[in-house]
Every structure is written in C-alpha cells, then in structure tokens.
C-alpha cells in the first residue's frame, strides 16, 4: 500500500511575506511549511522563488481561504483549477480550506463566516467538498473556524457537523486547536469535549496560533505566541489524533523567522513527550 501523504511527524509554520527574503537566502529549518494559496496563484517574482527554495528542504502544503464551500454561489471553478495547477507545480501532498462561507451573490467577504450546523448545510458542504477534491486530484482537508456567532437554526454541535461533512465528502479534518479554544470561550462549550468528540481517523493536520482574551469573548487574531491553554489542548489532541503534521500561524505582530521556528520546535518537543520519540526531524 502506498504511504499516505499524512503519515509523518512534521512541524512548521505558515509562510508570510515578512520572511520571504530570509527564506530565499537561507531556506527553512522546519520540515513543513504551509503557504496561503491565494498569495501564490498566478504569481511570479520573489514569492514563487521562495516557494521553490523552500521545496529543496521541506514539504509544502497549500492552505486556501476562498473556496467558500458553505456558500450558495456557484463554486469558482477557475479558482479551483488555478489552485490545482499550483498544487501540481509544487507537488503539494494536500490542500486545505475551511468549514465556512465567504461569498454571497458573487461577492467575496474575505472572511471565514460560520455556518448554521444543519442537515441542509452538511449536505451542501459535503457535496461541494467532494466535487472540489475530485477536481484538485489530491486530498482536501477542511478546517474548523473560530466563530463569534451561533445560529439559532443549528441542530447539532460544531464537532458533529465537521465530522459528518468530512465523512460524507471523503475529506479530512484540519483541526485548528486555537479556533476550538476561541469558539469554546465564545459559545460556552468545552474545548476538551470538542477534541474528544472528533473521530481520530479524520484529523490529518493541526494548526496552532494565539488569540486575545477580551473577558466576555476571545478574538482569533494570530497576533501573539501560542498560549498555554492552546498548548494544553494540543497535548490532548496529539494523544487522540497521533503525530499529525502541525503548523504554527502568525498573521499580526509577526516575529522573526528564528522565533517562529523555535515555537514550531516547541510543538515538536511536546509531540516527542507525548509519543516519546526522538526530537530530531
């Protein structure tokens, strides 16, 4: 049997523009880097050269934010095909996007809006995810979003929704541990229960990030190091889902590349503790 592209213990970070120059010059020390697909589609210049440079030393995964699989607009197949071409050129093992909608009436919100967790939404997202995965020609995995609203129309908890869509669509889950913590705070559910409720075989990748706590609610701002509450839940997730590849995300107050690599190394160290495996890659 051919090895699954997910069968490895890779830790890395999300590629961001402030690090392009340094990465072009010295390459990455992390074995796994995630690139935001929309930043590279149809684009040359330094960003593309950086990706080629990183590929010499590390695996790259593509992470999208615009598929809007929960949206009611027609799927933007031009965008999907462009994504597929890029994935093919870079030989990425999988592509990820989100459980959300971000388009209405042909317009893009450039945000990841939460869906009502209903049977109608399950069927809708699953159908579209399966169709997109077929065109991409490689595994699609979908991420739970952080959210600030809950729909009265919802008939099931989020963890049931994402698992059911994944099962029906034949796609994997990208578990954003920070998003679970943020949404748990905002909606008053147990983050531990969320993780414990997801089927272990569906989770293919994890995200780690920071958030800001505003007392009544938390904002998923990716502007600070991973807080202890997220590291703690990450331990629980590792124990349940195994050594799935994990990416550290920072989108604001972006630290130096060395700091980011050190934080990714902490993720590796925690996995090493949980699994008692050697720390080196």
């Amino acid at each position, binding site marked *: 049997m051919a090895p699954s592209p997910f069968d490895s213990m890779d830790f890395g970070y999300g590629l961001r523009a402030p690090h392009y120059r340094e990465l072009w010059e010295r390459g990455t020390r992390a074995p796994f880097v995630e690139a935001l697909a929309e930043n590279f589609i149809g684009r040359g210049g*330094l960003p593309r050269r950086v990706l080629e440079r990183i590929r010499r030393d590390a695996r790259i995964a593509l992470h999208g934010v615009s598929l809007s699989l929960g949206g009611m607009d027609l799927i933007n197949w031009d965008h999907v095909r462009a994504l597929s071409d890029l994935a093919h050129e870079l030989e990425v093992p999988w592509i990820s996007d989100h459980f959300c909608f971000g388009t209405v009436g042909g317009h893009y919100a450039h945000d990841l809006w939460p869906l009502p967790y209903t049977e109608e939404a399950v069927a809708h997202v699953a159908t579209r995810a399966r169709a997109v995965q077929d065109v991409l020609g490689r595994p699609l995995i979908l991420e739970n979003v952080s959210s600030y609203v809950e729909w009265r129309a919802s008939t099931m908890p989020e963890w049931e929704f994402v698992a059911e869509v994944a099962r029906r669509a034949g796609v994997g889950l990208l578990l954003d541990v920070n998003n679970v913590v943020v949404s748990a705070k905002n909606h008053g559910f147990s983050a531990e229960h969320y993780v414990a409720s997801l089927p272990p075989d569906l989770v293919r990748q994890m995200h780690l990030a920071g958030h800001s706590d505003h007392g009544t609610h938390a904002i998923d701002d990716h502007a600070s190091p991973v807080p202890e509450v997220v590291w703690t839940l990450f331990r629980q997730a590792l124990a349940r889902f195994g050594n799935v590849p994990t990416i550290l995300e920072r989108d604001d107050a972006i630290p130096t590349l060395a700091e980011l690599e050190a934080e990714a190394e902490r993720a590796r160290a925690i996995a090493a503790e949980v699994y008692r495996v050697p720390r080196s890659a």
Partner: protein
Amino acid sequence: MSLDQLEERFWRCVRSKAVPDSLDTWLMGEPSLNAARRLGIYHHAYYARQIGVLGEVFLRVRAVIGPVEFANVAREYLNFYPSRTPVIERIGGRFPAFLSQTSHGNRKGLTDLARLERARLDALLSPDSARSLSLDELATTPPARTRLLPHPAARLLRLSRRALALWHGAMDTAETGNTYVLVSRPVCEVLQREFDQENGRALERSYAGEPLAEIFGEFSGVDAIEKASRALTNFLRVGAWAGLEVDPC
C-alpha cells in the same frame, strides 16, 4: 429559513451599520455578549481587513489625504464595489477610478498616483515571463515583421508629473504636464522608470502591437538610429518585453 436566506441576511447585516430588530430571532446571544455585539465583530473585521489592504496598496494616496479620510473613502468604495475576487490584494482594481469620482478627484495628480500604485501591485502579482528577450535576438529579426510581446508584469502609464512628484513625497509641487512611466518587474524587484515623450510613445506603439520598424520610426533627427538603439537597450534592461513574434511574411 433556508441556508441561502440565512447567508444572504448575514451578508446584508455585516455590511450594514444598522442592527435589525429581528437579529435575536436568528442569532444567539447572552446579556454579557448579545447578538448585535457578536455581529459587530464581523462588521468590524470585514471593513478593517479590506481597508487595511487598500491602505497598503495605496500607501501614498493614504499619506496624501490622511488615514482617517482614506478609511472613509475606502469604506465607501467597498460599499459601492464589494470584492469580486478571491485574492484580497486585488480588491482595489476600481479604486483609482472611484477616487476620481469623489471630492478628491479634483486634487491634481491624486487619481494618477492611485493608478501608479495599482500598477505597482499588478507588477507584483503578475506571473513571470515564460521566456526572456535579448538584444542579440532582436538584432537578428526583420524589423518590419517583428512584434514585441509585453512582459506580463509591465504596465506603461501616462501620468501627470504632479502624480510622480506626490509619489516622491513632494506635497506642494508645482510640476505640470504629463509623462510616461513604465512599471515593470523583470525578476523580483518592481522597477519604475520615467520616459520622455519620444521613448514613451515608442514603447506605447510596441505595446499596441506595431512592428519594430514602426517603433524605430518614432525616433527622428540625425541620431535617430542611435536613439532608437539606446531606447531598445533601456527597455530590455527594465523588462519591458517578454519575447517577440515574427510574422511569416
């Protein structure tokens, strides 16, 4: 309510300042954080994120009119032209034209400054050229049958000199008239070169698909050949073209 109706309602509410009375009937909330405040988080994020991107692209326009006024104009723009692109950097495609329709349209050079900043972004977001063009290659082709292909990242603009002065930070410039500016990205760096009328028109004609011989014809005087040859060398150096086509006959 169907998924379609819920999503459409959410979109309208996020983009509106007004909170509908019926909000609590379709979104949950508690006294400590009611539905309106929760929706407000999305409202704020929608505008802040996109106004932030527009501010990064139109950095000098923002500096000229000030950050508060820029945010007002950008917000108006987003209300008028909600994004139709999956790539957030591209949301400002119509911003220069929109700016010209606002009260800032009367400010000399500002719309052209926005066009210049937009062209610089286009240069960054464009694909690389599939091939390169050399002077040697040009020298071996018949000029009357040779057409030059624009580099995908190159944009030739005819701009007011005042816009260029604003670009360089001169707020109180007395510059008048127009000039040609080529924005290009031969490899990684975005270049911006100003050309005089003779050179600018020659490049403009090449981008219009006229044969090389006609472009040469743009140069006049006893040193016309020398000037044309210098121009070609310059254009090649800054990555104006990506290749050539030779008509069969």
